[in-house]
């Protein structure tokens, strides 16, 4: 199935637009895309009429131009008829917003639309979903634009079984400066499911990381997901809900009781290097980190801080997440020491975590980072940059990023997420070094690299 028309449409029909009800999902979707997106949008309602001086098409078949994608937001009993019309018209794919299918016990209706689409090899998202958000292309979320904080265009592809979690996570991504290539709420996932989405994102040049929120797989679907994930060339991050211990109490064998879902799921994800996030905070951190670095590491961290306390907090977090902080080579220490500003040479602590003290200046940080990255025991440097130190310049983000790029190893920074320090944060982020807004967040970003397949 070719999904390009569906996810990157130039023309779109919105079916179910109401002439009387402004807040109808179809109206929200029509208005939003008509006014704010480049996609050419056609409103459709069998009754005809007008909306904001535009005439409604009575059927998608009445539209003269080629229609790449259709949003179907009519009552569930009319969906199959509309679907048939779309197929007849040669529409490239659909987003079925309408609810009232398997989730309300109406499996027969759901199977009917599945059969119609399958016979015509017609791809669709949903039903019972929010659909898709592709910055710069299209947005089928029926939430008023002024209520959403949408992330910018970026390289994270996000797929969620729950529309609510999807929108909430997008707000979190936006807050952390993480961009989206495409976000998809797959709802009842009748036609396009997680496995198809892996295939799409794997070949999509705009996507670097694929993230999933999953509530449940069908029988055997977990294995199919893993098989696709294994073939996929990009990191996959997953947040799984519903891994409770319930339902295994009556297990008849040791193995059955030892291998409940809460145990099986994480272990299999680890086996195949799918990066499982334990919570939404990890999901955000993991996506940011893996969108910058797509090679896994074993987790050996070198830490540079300007305050002893931050180094210790980071070391504790590393221990908690089983990330080793190796001993640095004596040669590295000696080289850094002679190059430090004389004023801090005797007060800086050059064991890992390195504490350069609040009296350090840019050059001390740059030198330490460079030689730490060159140390054979270190795979990744954590730069805990508290910008309160007077010796730290506004250029430090850009300069440190350059060092990391030259040395060819990942660097992750911590800078407090405040407008005042935006210039430092941007210095890192525009140079593809991820920035966390907490020390633990920075450690989690390294954890993501460790969970991913080592190169």
């Amino acid at each position: 199935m070719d999904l390009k028309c569906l996810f990157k449409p130039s023309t779109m029909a919105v079916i179910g637009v109401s002439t009387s009800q402004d807040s109808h999902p179809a109206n929200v979707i029509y208005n939003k895309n008509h006014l704010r997106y480049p996609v050419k949008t056609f409103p459709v309602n069998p009754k005809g009429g007008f909306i904001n001086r535009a005439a409604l098409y009575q059927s998608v078949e009445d539209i003269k131009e080629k229609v790449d994608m259709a949003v179907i937001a009519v009552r569930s009993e009319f969906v199959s008829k509309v679907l048939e019309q779309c197929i007849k018209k040669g529409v490239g794919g659909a987003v079925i917003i309408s609810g009232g299918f398997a989730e309300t016990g109406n499996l027969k209706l759901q199977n009917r639309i599945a059969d119609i689409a399958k016979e015509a090899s017609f791809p669709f998202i949903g039903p019972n979903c929010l659909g898709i958000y592709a910055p710069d292309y299209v947005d089928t979320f029926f939430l008023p634009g002024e209520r959403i904080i949408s992330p910018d265009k970026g390289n994270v592809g996000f797929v969620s079984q729950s529309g609510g979690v999807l929108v909430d996570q997008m707000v979190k991504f936006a807050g952390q400066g993480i961009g989206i290539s495409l976000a998809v709420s797959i709802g009842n996932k009748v036609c396009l499911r997680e496995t198809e989405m892996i295939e799409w994102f794997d070949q999509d040049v705009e996507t670097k990381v694929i993230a999933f929120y999953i509530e449940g797989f069908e029988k055997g679907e977990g294995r199919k997901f893993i098989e696709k994930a294994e073939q996929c060339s990009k990191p996959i991050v997953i947040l799984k809900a519903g891994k409770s211990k319930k339902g295994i109490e009556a297990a008849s064998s040791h193995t059955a009781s030892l291998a409940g879902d809460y145990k099986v799921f994480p272990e299999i994800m680890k086996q195949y290097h799918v990066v499982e996030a334990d919570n939404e905070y990890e999901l955000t951190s993991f996506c940011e980190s893996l969108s910058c670095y797509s090679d896994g590491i074993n987790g050996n961290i070198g830490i540079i801080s300007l305050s002893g306390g931050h180094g210790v907090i980071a070391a504790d977090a590393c221990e908690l997440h089983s990330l080793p902080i190796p001993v640095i080579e004596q040669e590295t220490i000696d080289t850094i020491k002679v190059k430090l500003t004389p004023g801090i040479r005797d007060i800086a602590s050059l064991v890992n975590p390195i504490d350069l003290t609040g009296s350090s200046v840019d050059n001390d940080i740059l030198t330490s980072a460079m030689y730490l990255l060159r140390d054979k025991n270190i795979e990744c440097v954590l730069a805990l940059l508290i910008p309160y130190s007077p010796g730290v310049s506004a250029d430090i983000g850009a300069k440190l990023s350059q060092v990391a790029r030259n040395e060819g190893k990942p660097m992750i920074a911590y800078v407090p997420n405040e407008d005042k320090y935006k210039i430092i944060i941007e210095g890192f982020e525009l140079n593809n070094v991820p920035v966390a807004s907490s020390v633990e967040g920075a450690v989690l970003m390294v954890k993501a690299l460790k969970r991913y397949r080592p190169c």
Partner: protein
Amino acid sequence: MLKEKSSQKLNKDSKKILANSKSLGWVLEPDAKALMRLQGFDIPDFVLTDSLKEIESFLSKTGYPVVAKAVSEKILHKTEHQAVVTGISSKEQLYKEITRLTKLEGCKNILIEPMIQGIEVIIGAKNDFQFGPVIVFGIGGTSVEIYNDTAVRMAPLKPDDVLSMVESLKAKKIISGYRGMAGVNMEILTHLIVNFSLFVMELENDIESVDLNPVICTRDRCVIVDARIMLSS
């Protein structure tokens, strides 16, 4: 160097054992062991009988200590029914236990096998709803659920998966050898688990779960001392 097989196809006799156990819902220990032996796994020599004469002739070859177990269609969890006696070291003790075991509910036969000393591990399999056959490995015995020190992987396994399973256990030092005690022969253990995972792939449609518990590992053997196969309904 032991070679891992590429598959573990069921032969005719193995299929017969599974078919005969279908109505019970699980495979009795002696049948499960016979099945494992047919598939080339290491199980202890045993005698299954209600005749003391046969037991004596078996013991004249193997000697003490031995393990005696009641074989009953009514007893799925033997430990809970005191249906297993380990470390029997004399004829007197053996006879006493046999008398007791034969009185247990549904006991038709007694299984006697030599007592093997070593590290007890569990190797299990489950037909998972989402992932199909998965393999469980951990420290074995009757307290597995208490310690819950196990690793799970999706079948079939590669030799590297076995190493990572051992590595992920809290008890990994027990497997590798600890305080002067010999560890497990990793080559044999790897061979067993990889082949078991292939075997389980063949059983996908027949089983709900399999417990090989304990598997007793020594420096040169990994012996399946007890096997329980729960069939899918």
